[in-house]
């Protein structure tokens, strides 16, 4: 394996500078308690004024007056590191933030896709440059060596363990990540570089130094593997868009919505996943945010479709108050399984699959609007078309006398005039066990108009026939 180490020596400063439109102006980062403000980092223009990192603010103000002070923000730096890891993740599946201000990525398996290393490196440098980050890149055969060589080199590319060892041998002992006291002890022994240390017999080194020194040297040479915590993209998507004005209509919300959903789709594509459910929070100036839940039956990730669905839900909503900002949260991110399409489709105009159509209809008409029709083994007509208690649906028609194709939602009393009884009675007596007791005599009747109906009379009662279905 080959590991590339991208060292960002001035990450904190760069994270501030990339957001400013005048990066050439003198600027210093401040840290420390209010009583003793210290310059954490200075940019080249500030250094030219004589300012140095570690100076106190009062000293700096005595030296120069025209520089900008910015508070050091560790959270922003951490966020930038996560962004960098996500950026590096597009080049390699093994990305680690093990060392601070450093991105380690395994590149040997990516070389086939991103070209030979010089091209790959040029691309990394170009994109880092666009992000506005100063960097050093070193390629070595193990991650620890890559990190330590980056202390002294930039652009070094070592393709095997031997070359790595040779380059490491030239490194001074205080630059290879050894504990400070060990490095001091070694230099006091007259050992200047790692080559001399490696020349020592292993047992004497082990006797004189702590075990961690030997472990570190072994890791440096790749003799002992090191477990790195690899970066994993987050399992959750959250994005927020602040609107510059109060929005009172749906139409004006569509544009920010489109941007948010495009971000979501890019995120899903990088995860190779889909989204099944996401929530839009419409935040108002005061009061709680209005949630708009967009649920899908199957995972999807196509931006256009997600936008159409969210739009369908949004249009149904009446806004209680002007919207100030929109937040999109997606927690339910299952794997995306594309629907198989047919290569030779019978119908040429097959633009939209049934799944997409179903989601579209559900988005506008409501979640329960699209139903499957299922038959259940129950003699009671009102129970045969809706699941009573998790019974499995029938796949074949139950035998017996003919049944009507249409069922009335509520039975209607039939006027007895001109009614002809064609068949019957057929008794249906069922449901005594679940409280829906039914005891009826069913008849096939024909109305004066010629319609055939299915009507019943409750057992033991006189009165009219109750129409329950039509033989259409």
């Amino acid at each position: 394996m080959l590991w590339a180490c991208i060292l960002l020596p001035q990450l904190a400063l760069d994270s501030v500078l990339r957001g400013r439109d005048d990066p050439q102006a003198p600027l210093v980062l401040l840290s420390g308690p209010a009583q003793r403000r210290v310059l954490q980092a200075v940019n080249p223009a500030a250094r030219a004024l004589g300012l140095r990192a570690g100076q106190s603010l009062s000293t700096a103000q005595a030296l120069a007056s025209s520089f900008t002070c910015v508070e050091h923000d560790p959270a922003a730096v951490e966020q930038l590191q996560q962004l960098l890891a996500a950026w590096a993740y597009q080049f390699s599946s093994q990305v680690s933030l093990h060392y601070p201000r450093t991105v380690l990525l395994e590149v040997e398996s990516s070389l086939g896709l991103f070209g030979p290393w010089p091209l790959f490196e040029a691309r990394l440098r170009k994109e880092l440059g666009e992000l506005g980050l100063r960097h050093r890149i070193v390629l070595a055969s193990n991650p620890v060596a890559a990190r330590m060589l980056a202390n002294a080199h930039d652009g070094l590319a070592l393709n095997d363990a031997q070359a790595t060892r040779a380059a490491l041998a030239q490194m001074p002992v205080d630059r290879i990540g050894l504990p400070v006291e060990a490095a001091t002890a070694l230099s006091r022994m007259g050992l200047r570089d790692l080559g001399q240390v490696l020349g020592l017999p292993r047992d004497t080194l082990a006797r004189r130094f702590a075990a961690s020194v030997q472990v570190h040297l072994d890791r440096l040479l790749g003799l002992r593997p090191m477990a790195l915590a690899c970066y994993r993209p987050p399992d959750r998507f959250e994005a927020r868009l602040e609107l510059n004005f109060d929005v009172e209509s749906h139409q004006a919300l569509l544009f920010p919505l489109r941007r948010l959903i495009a971000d979501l789709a890019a995120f899903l594509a990088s995860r190779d996943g889909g989204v099944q459910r996401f929530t839009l929070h419409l935040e108002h100036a005061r009061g709680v945010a209005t949630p708009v839940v967009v649920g899908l039956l199957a995972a999807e990730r196509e931006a256009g479709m997600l936008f159409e669905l969210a739009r369908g839900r949004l249009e149904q909503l009446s806004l209680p108050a002007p919207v100030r900002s929109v937040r999109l949260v997606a927690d339910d991110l299952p794997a995306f399984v594309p629907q198989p399409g047919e290569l030779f489709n019978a119908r040429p105009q097959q633009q939209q699959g049934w799944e997409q159509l179903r989601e579209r209809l559900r988005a506008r008409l409501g979640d329960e609007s699209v139903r499957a029709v299922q038959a259940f083994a129950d003699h009671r007509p009102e129970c045969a078309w809706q699941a009573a208690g998790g019974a499995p649906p029938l796949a074949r028609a139950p035998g017996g006398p003919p049944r009507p194709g249409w069922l009335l939602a509520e039975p209607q009393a039939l006027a007895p005039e001109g009614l002809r009884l064609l068949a019957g009675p057929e008794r249906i007596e069922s449901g005594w066990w679940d409280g829906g007791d039914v005891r009826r005599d069913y008849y096939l009747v024909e109305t004066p108009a010629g319609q055939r109906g299915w009507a019943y009379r409750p057992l033991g009662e006189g009165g009219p026939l109750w129409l329950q279905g039509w033989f259409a």
Partner: protein
Amino acid sequence: MGAVVSLDGLLDERRVWKGRPLAQPRGLQPTGHAALDAVLPGGGWPPGALSELLLAAEGAGELHLLWPSLARLTASGERVVLVAPPFIPYPPAWLAAGVDLRWLSLIQASRVEALWAAEQCLRSGSCGAVLCWPQQVDDRALRRLQVAAETGQTLAFACRPQQAALNPSPAALRIAVDLHPAQWRVLKCRGGLAPATPIAMAGRG
């Protein structure tokens, strides 16, 4: 008199339009009723077009007419969508008619939304047949359905009361379903003359 012009030459120049009827492939969408197939121009439902069923009363005869086609479509894995039917489809009867319920979907919608849903279903091209029950619709709504059916190459069926038979309609096929006597009358069929004699409804005494 000018030079003698050969008739074949004139025809080859295509300056003379000949009213040759377009040869329609027969039997693409058979209705499943032999007597009806025999009189319809395409040997069945007009493919990719709207067919109007004009019923004497609600729930009277449309399923008997459509079930064979729906059974054939669902058996070949085409989806059949019922958009806002006036009654509940009773599954045992549909199963007995040979309809594969896995391919049958039901959409519940209000009267206005039903037209939109039917148009979406037709336009998407992912359904084999779409049944709808438009109530008091005008010419324009029916034309939209007809255009959507053409776009998606889907069979569209609109069940309407027989009073609507007097109004003109953009549907490619109009069939009136009578109960007394039980018969079908083809009122209009695109691509041919409507047969003058009614067709006795088979399988219903």
